[in-house]
């Protein structure tokens, strides 16, 4: 019974923690601009995050190696250090984007100044992470983030044309569009891949598995959490895209702002729906801010071999503790420069995909190393999928920056 509760909680936490500000805004923009034709990218990228998420959990349970230790061992100190710095920069930009999202939602709910809400929310998040152990942090934001299911309910209530929706799941490239739109389609395809496969998710998931002291007995939980939890979370993101295609595309509304996206729930469910959607967004963005900041601190501590973890009291892990506090402060400083949060979202998306190949290569190598993994080494399915998605990630990484520049972040 306890095992079943653990599995259900794990899946619910994965679902509630899946959507962040990047996925929300890119899914809504994609639906508004290209209808259902980018749904297949979400589906494909979800298989990718399931494959690499499962691999990182399995490696953590068997080889007891967090991602950044693997990175150092397999890439060497020079390339490993480069990846570390790039990952920390990306995590902190993403953290700043999430804090910006939290501040926007709080401003919508209670009025007041955006920058003051940003500072207050960072102070609150620091207190929460300081006081609560890892399990509680994960569950608090993951379970309250389930309020985002209001978006899925709204999708059903908006009665989308399901046959057209299903057609969107078939891989396609809209050759009929003008050249500029085709480039923008490519940019959104890369951005969605990046948003679903965010590197911090792997760092956080694998570090969490080590914090939870996973053993081989946890491998079924790992498979279910990644397989079922990530799939359901992705369905939620797809629901946001579908609702945007139903509501915003016919009237040419660009839902770049989270407030506009929240209208997806307000239209079918009125004011109560809007409040639930906003509260869900608040929890989802806060959870993502915590995850990104902790992911940056985990990376640093694991690379240099400092004691780390949120199962331990802050005094037991002084350098790790100072690292995550510094992470929050730097992210807040970025927000306080008044950079539009959506610019931060775009930067984090573009630079994340560039870091991804360096994150996933060591993982793929160690999951194939029988000396470390014994009988839990990658089978042919995991290997085939891993190599295929690695190739996709490399192609997306090569195309990300040129597409961002050519399309002005998808705006052309």
């Amino acid at each position, binding site marked *: 019974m306890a095992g079943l509760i653990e599995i259900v909680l794990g899946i619910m936490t994965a679902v509630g923690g899946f959507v962040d500000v990047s996925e929300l805004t890119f899914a809504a923009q994609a639906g508004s601009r290209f209808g259902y034709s980018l749904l297949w990218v979400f589906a494909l990228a979800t298989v990718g995050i399931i494959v690499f998420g499962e691999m990182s959990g399995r490696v953590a349970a068997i*080889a007891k190696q967090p991602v950044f*230790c693997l990175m150092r061992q397999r890439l060497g*100190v020079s390339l490993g250090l480069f990846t570390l710095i790039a990952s920390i920069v990306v995590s902190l930009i993403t953290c700043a984007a999430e804090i910006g999202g939290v501040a926007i939602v709080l401003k919508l709910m209670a009025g007041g100044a955006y920058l003051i809400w940003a500072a207050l929310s960072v102070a609150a998040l620091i207190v929460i992470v300081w006081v609560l152990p890892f399990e509680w942090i994960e569950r608090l934001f993951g379970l309250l983030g389930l309020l985002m299911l209001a978006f899925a309910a709204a999708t059903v209530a908006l009665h989308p044309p399901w046959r057209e929706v299903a057609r969107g799941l078939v891989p396609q490239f809209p050759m009929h569009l003008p050249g500029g739109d085709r480039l923008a389609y490519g940019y959104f395809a890369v951005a969605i891949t990046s948003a679903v496969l965010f590197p911090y998710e792997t760092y956080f998931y694998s570090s969490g598995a080590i914090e939870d002291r996973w053993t081989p007995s946890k491998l079924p939980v790992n498979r279910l959490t990644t397989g079922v939890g990530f799939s359901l979370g992705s369905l939620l993101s797809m629901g946001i895209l579908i609702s945007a295609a139903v509501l915003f595309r016919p009237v040419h509304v660009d839902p770049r702002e989270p407030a506009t996206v929240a209208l997806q729930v307000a239209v079918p469910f009125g004011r109560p729906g809007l409040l639930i959607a906003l509260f869900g967004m608040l929890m989802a963005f806060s959870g993502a801010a915590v995850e990104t900041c902790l992911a940056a601190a985990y990376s640093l501590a694991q690379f240099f071999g400092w004691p*780390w973890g949120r199962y331990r*009291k802050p*005094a037991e892990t*002084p350098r790790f503790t100072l690292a995550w506090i510094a992470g929050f402060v730097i992210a807040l400083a970025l927000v306080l420069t008044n950079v539009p949060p959506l610019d931060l979202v775009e930067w984090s998306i573009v630079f994340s995909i560039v870091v991804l190949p360096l994150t996933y290569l060591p993982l793929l190598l160690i999951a194939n190393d029988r000396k470390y993994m014994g009988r839990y080494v990658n089978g042919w399915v995991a290997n085939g999928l891993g190599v295929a998605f690695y190739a996709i990630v490399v192609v997306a990484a090569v195309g990300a920056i040129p597409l961002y520049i050519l399309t002005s972040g998808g705006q052309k």
Partner: protein
Amino acid sequence: MTPDGAIKVFSELRDLQIFDCEDQLCGICDEVEFEGEPSQPLKVAALLVGPGAYRGRLPGVVFWLVRRVAGDRITRVPWSAVEHVTSRISLNVRAEDLGLGREDRRLRPLIEKVPFA
């Protein structure tokens, strides 16, 4: 030990996590120190931990930057203090007996002043 074996020991020790006898993570093996004479068998003398051990592993400019930020301290872990090596290195002594984790011990009193630390 065959030359192949010796090279394998070297490549598989570097960058592994080091845990002390109380199962506390206390560093990463940044470099391996060997001892021996020409025509004599080469032996592992110690594991080197700390940013100073990156010399030779990082390009010159990068090492200069690392040294500016993190210093160039090296802590030497004698091979005799190694209990066994698997996917990690386990020691048979406490970290503080070797001078590992010094920074954390220095910072701990500051953190402990904050409630719930």
